[in-house]
């Protein structure tokens, strides 16, 4: 199959046929015009050969449609550059060894599911002993000290705890995304951290089913972890980022006061 990576199109049963499936509801009673409207809408989206294969009236005032068509758009895969979590993923043992060798002290993290969000399963999967999919959580790592504050924690409390235990990383989980409540909440936390003046001392990490690393960078976080994240992914990142930032700080220090650090 000879795929042109500069113009990727959907694949139905033949390369570049562009086939895709849509379903949606229009707030109008079902009639020939409504069907046509569904077709026109799909055309506006850039579908050709539009087939409204199913139309069903919902409660007399809505119409549900299943539509197939061939998408004229294509995507240049070669031009896609997305920020990726900058870490080599290591195993439990490797991470602990790495911290022992490169950092030489236990890494302290605080974690919570903040705001009104009460979904702890995700953050628990990363932090708690028990872990996730057969992997231990950070609590179990000898070279991590992890505080899991649980759910519905106000951002302020999370931050206070971080300061109190002198945390290296703040881990925040957001699951509820209705009306983008997670964005508000995550932005708020970043602002608090900034205001407290500790942003350069702490790794700010977000996670959740609708979280991407891209979003994290956008909101000024250091990393974002989405669905399927394992504790070791997070552990690897924290360890390496911390080692890096310690090195950076050392170098910065060297630049500013060259004679002090280099006697």
């Amino acid at each position, binding site marked *: 199959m000879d795929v042109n990576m500069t113009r990727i199109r959907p694949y139905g049963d033949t390369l570049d046929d562009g086939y895709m499936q849509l*379903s*949606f*509801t229009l707030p109008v009673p079902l009639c020939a015009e409504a069907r046509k409207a569904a077709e026109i809408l799909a055309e506006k989206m850039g579908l050709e050969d539009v087939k409204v294969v199913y139309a*069903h009236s*919902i*409660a*007399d*005032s*809505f119409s*549900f449609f299943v539509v197939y068509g061939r998408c004229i758009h294509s995507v240049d895969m070669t031009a896609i550059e997305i920020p990726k979590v900058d870490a080599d993923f290591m195993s439990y043992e490797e991470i602990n060894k790495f911290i022992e060798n490169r950092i030489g002290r236990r890494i302290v993290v605080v974690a919570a599911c903040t*705001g*009104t*969000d*009460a979904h*702890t*399963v995700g953050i*628990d999967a990363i932090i708690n002993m028990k872990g996730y999919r057969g992997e231990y959580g950070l609590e179990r790592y000898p070279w991590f000290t992890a505080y899991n504050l*649980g*759910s*519905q924690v106000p951002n302020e409390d999370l931050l206070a705890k971080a300061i109190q235990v002198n945390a290296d990383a703040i881990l925040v989980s957001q699951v*509820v*995304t*209705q*009306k983008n*409540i997670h964005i508000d909440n995550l932005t708020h936390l970043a602002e608090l951290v900034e205001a407290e003046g500790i942003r350069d001392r702490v790794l700010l990490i977000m996670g959740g*089913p609708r979280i991407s690393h891209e979003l994290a960078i956008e909101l000024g976080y250091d990393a974002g972890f989405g669905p399927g994240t394992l504790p070791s992914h997070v552990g690897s990142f924290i360890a390496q980022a911390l080692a890096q930032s310690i090195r950076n700080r050392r170098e910065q220090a060297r630049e500013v006061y060259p004679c002090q650090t280099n006697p």
Partner: protein
Amino acid sequence: MMRLDIDMTLVDRARCAAKRIADGIQPIIDAYTTTSIERCVLRLLGVNGVDENDVPLPNIIVDQALAAGLLEDGIAYWLGSAMLHEGVSLPEITAKLSSEKVSLDEVHPFDHETVRRAIWHEATRVCSYIKGRRLERERLITGVNSSVPPYLYVIVATGNIYEDVIQAKAAAKCGADIIAVIRSTGQSLLDYVPYGPTTEGFGGTYATQANFRIMREALDEVSRECGRYIRLVNYCSGLCMPEIAAMGALERLDMMLNDAMYGILFRNINMQRTFIDQHFSRMINAYAGVVINTGEDNYLTTADAYEEAHTVLASQVINEALAQRSGLRAEQIGLGHAYEMNPHMQDGFLYELAQAEMARTIFPEAPLKYMPPTKHMTGNIFKGHLMDAMFNLAGVISGQTIQLLGILTEHVHTPHLQDRYLAIENAKYIMNNARHLREEITYRKGGIMEKRANEVLAKATSMLEQVAEISLMSAIEEGMFASVKRERTGGRGLDGVIRKSERYYNPFPEIFMKELTSSDFQPVLWGDEVKG
């Protein structure tokens, strides 16, 4: 004939342990009241509305009383005294109290009998109103067409009550029997009930009395259109459990999510507060002819459904024992369970079905509420739709009463209109296409399913006996339910728990229990099932 051969001696032992467990916490329930119970008393006595800062009047008055150290006598006692003191009617005195024209600590405490006489009339009046609403429901369900169980239960959760109404009506027209309005995230932790119609919630819509009324009216309208009675559900849980029970009773809600331990385990609400609140709230539900739904399904969202199935059963038996003490009839106790086994498990369907049949066998009269797959739902809506179908099949085979429909977008968002249509279509198709499969098949003696059911039962029984031994509160402290540990004095709301004084007065338990324990109390719950 039992469908699954279950060891009934174990069932008896389990129930016996549950009785001991309930006995163990009864002293606390008897000795304490809570701010929420007292606010509920105010609501029942007609106190409603908010002040200019949107603070609900029941909170203003109860907070006053609490600050003044008077709440131990019961707000009714002081309300009565204030009425007598000021020589005005109940509406007048509450107006004065909430506008702080009268302060409770200036009120002269009247003797118990006098106060009782002053309040009794008002209390019985609201009770007969509530009873009237119950009878209204009975009238509405008698004679009209009714679906055959499993009843199809769907949720609406737009955050906006008016948009919810559109969704709910559409769902009813698609074939839903029961509509639940999901609450906004975080409402359960509010120590007051928001007021008025609301249009801004996250992941759900605030439970307010106005919202209850708006939705009830809409559903009454669509009930008439469809020729079926459409039931309304809300959440009677969180820090305002009793108040919401009262609101639901006044607005003719038909079902309430109401669990004896949910708030403790999943919302970190103080356990004493919760046990006390649930007892009173359940009396109201019972009296209003509401079917409660317990929340055992939640255990399986954090714990593994195969490993921890026995905790669900143990909790059901406890919920049952506690509910009975509030006067709820077996037919009103919609015990919750859930279809949450990992879909990749070989023979997972057999285990699920075994557990569903087990619940049906152990609680033959309960309108069991069966929760759909949620935890293992992913963004693969196609696979999710299938999991929901297998759940629907398990529901119809095992003869569940209330089937909370799974939604193919469970992982994605609160249901869109089309998601709900597809969910209802799914249930109708499966349940009709396999309608009498239940009567057609029998399970192998000593087979996988029978073994599984008895294994879960045995584990639950021994867990219950252990809990009975150490007391429920200690068991929760040890993390025996949902692997969550809570402390007796931890969590939210302990500050709202008040030891009753000698002269504590609350007119309602007496009124409710009198009716609930009379043999006349035979609320009609499910209509005639004029089968289609």
